[in-house]
């Protein structure tokens, strides 16, 4: 069953007289429980695709449906609610708030919920245990290693139990050992049924994905799910 439907999505960036086409008529369907890798060279449109999927940048044309919701048909504030309830973000540079410790960082998405403080703590604590950081809860980001910061970011992205996890180069700034630990964690989440879309340029990560798409100049050049690995440009 498809969780995500991108229908003829085009995204233009206009900068003065220049118009950059980041995505061209992209059509994509992603089933629930998929671990999708998005690969491509710099400027191929990977990050734009993730932004569009993450309800952060509206497409110039086309529609994006997640869980049968036309996300860009929602009003602005409802889009924020959608991000909070349906999406978890793992950013390339962790993007932890420097003055919040690990526990508070994980609780951040819950700060605007109606849960009690005790419940928020419980959920954030459970999530930190799940990513293997039960003893680092009160540490600030600068007191954590890169891998630990990434785990905190993963815990933060999962604390709302979102159906879709979006990760942008989560291992980009990590050494190979730590990268492997993070990918193992993401794989475990995937085994548990979590849908994950991860942007990466690292071919070593290919082994973790059960589907991979290759972007080039805003087009899906190759989709591993397509029959015989054929090109699936503008499905």
């Amino acid at each position, binding site marked *: 069953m498809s969780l995500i439907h991108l229908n003829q999505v085009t995204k233009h960036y206009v900068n003065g007289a220049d118009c950059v086409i980041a995505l061209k008529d992209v059509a994509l369907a992603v089933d629930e429980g998929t671990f999708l890798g998005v690969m491509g060279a710099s400027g191929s449109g990977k*990050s734009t695709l993730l932004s569009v999927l993450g309800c*952060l940048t509206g497409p110039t044309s086309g529609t994006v449906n997640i869980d049968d919701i036309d996300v860009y048909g929602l009003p602005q504030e409802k889009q*924020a609610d959608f*991000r909070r309830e349906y999406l978890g973000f793992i950013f390339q540079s962790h993007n932890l708030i420097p003055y919040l410790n690990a526990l508070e960082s994980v609780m951040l998405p819950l700060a605007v919920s109606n849960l009690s403080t005790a419940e*928020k703590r419980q959920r954030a604590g459970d999530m930190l245990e799940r990513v293997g950081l039960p003893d680092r809860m009160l540490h600030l980001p600068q007191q954590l290693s890169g891998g630990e910061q990434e785990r905190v970011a993963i815990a933060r992205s999962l604390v709302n139990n979102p159906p879709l996890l979006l990760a942008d180069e989560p291992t980009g700034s990590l050494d190979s050992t730590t990268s492997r630990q993070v990918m193992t964690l993401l794989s475990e989440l995937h085994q548990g049924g979590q849908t994950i879309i991860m942007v990466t340029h690292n071919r070593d990560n290919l082994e973790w994905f059960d589907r991979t798409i290759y972007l080039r100049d805003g087009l899906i050049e190759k989709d591993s799910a397509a029959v015989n690995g054929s090109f699936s440009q503008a499905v």
Partner: protein
Amino acid sequence: MRLEHIVLHNLRRRKGRAIFLVVGLMIGVATVVTLLSLTDALGQRAQNELENFGANIVITPHSDELALNYGGIQLGGVNLIAKEIEQARLVNIDKIPNRRNVATIGPKVLGAVEVQGQRVMMMGVDPEAEFKLKRWWSIAGRPIKQGYELLVGDTVAKRLDLEMGDTLQVNDQDYTVVGLLAKTGSQDDQLLIAPLSIAQAALGKQGQVSMVEIAALCHDCPVDDMVNQLQQVLPGTEVQAVQQVVKTRMHALGQFRLFAWGVAVTVVIIGALLVFVTMMGAISERTREIGIFRAIGYRRRHILHLVLMEAAIVSALGGVLGYLTGVAATLTALPLLDGGKASWQWNPTLAVAAVVAAVIVGLLASLQPALRASRLEPSEALRAL
């Protein structure tokens, strides 16, 4: 965790900026509080002086004749027909709309009596009212109360060689001198002062008064209006305000108050600009952070809430500290400005207003930065995505 925790964490993290804002607002609020407190204290002092100055409205019987005296010099040969005012009519003073501004009513009866072969002016007064009106009188002995008691002016005492405890005979009635009035340099030096009813009987003017002096609380009262009101309730009398003194003092006070407000408004504008510029800087610095908040699902109003709550906390702190500093500055400055005569009194309205105004200024000045922050597109704020 709630949004308040994020705000408090951020303030702790960015102590320097928070302290700069608090100190900036504190100086602004302290300046305003100091100026307004000084104005209040000096105004109160001036008001007290006005009240001590004595009567500022005089009611005399109506006369069609022109006054023929100046500076105490009476033209000889002028025969003035003295008219009087019915004392019973004075209750009408209580009927004027501004009756609350009437502090003291001092009725007087005047007339000449013969003492030891000399004609002397006798003045009958309501002792309690008169001594309120003439606070500058210095009396050896004690003020008159009721009965046949006399307070003797300095010139009369010397001419008649009177001393405390002496007995005088006026119209076959013995009076005891209970007090000697120190020299005033005014017509009071030439008076024998007796209780009103006693003097009325001695002068044959029972139930009549020659003039009435009124002290009005003139800090903000409309003297001209009161004169008109009194004129209406006491027809057939002349009501005059001693306007020159009152108006001069009121004008000076008004000018000082205007100056204080002018400085206060300027300081408030500078404070608002300070908050605005600092908050704009803070928003620019926190662009990425705001992007994270937006990306993980914070609504625009949540971002507004975060920025405005921070501004409110800093402003309230600046307001409280500013008020306390302002009070300390006032207490320090008052003795230097007024030789310690004016005193500071706690004004709860000013205390509350200082803090509330600081918060309002802080919030208004932060509104534009907060709106700007809330309108940041998460994708633009987050270059990572």
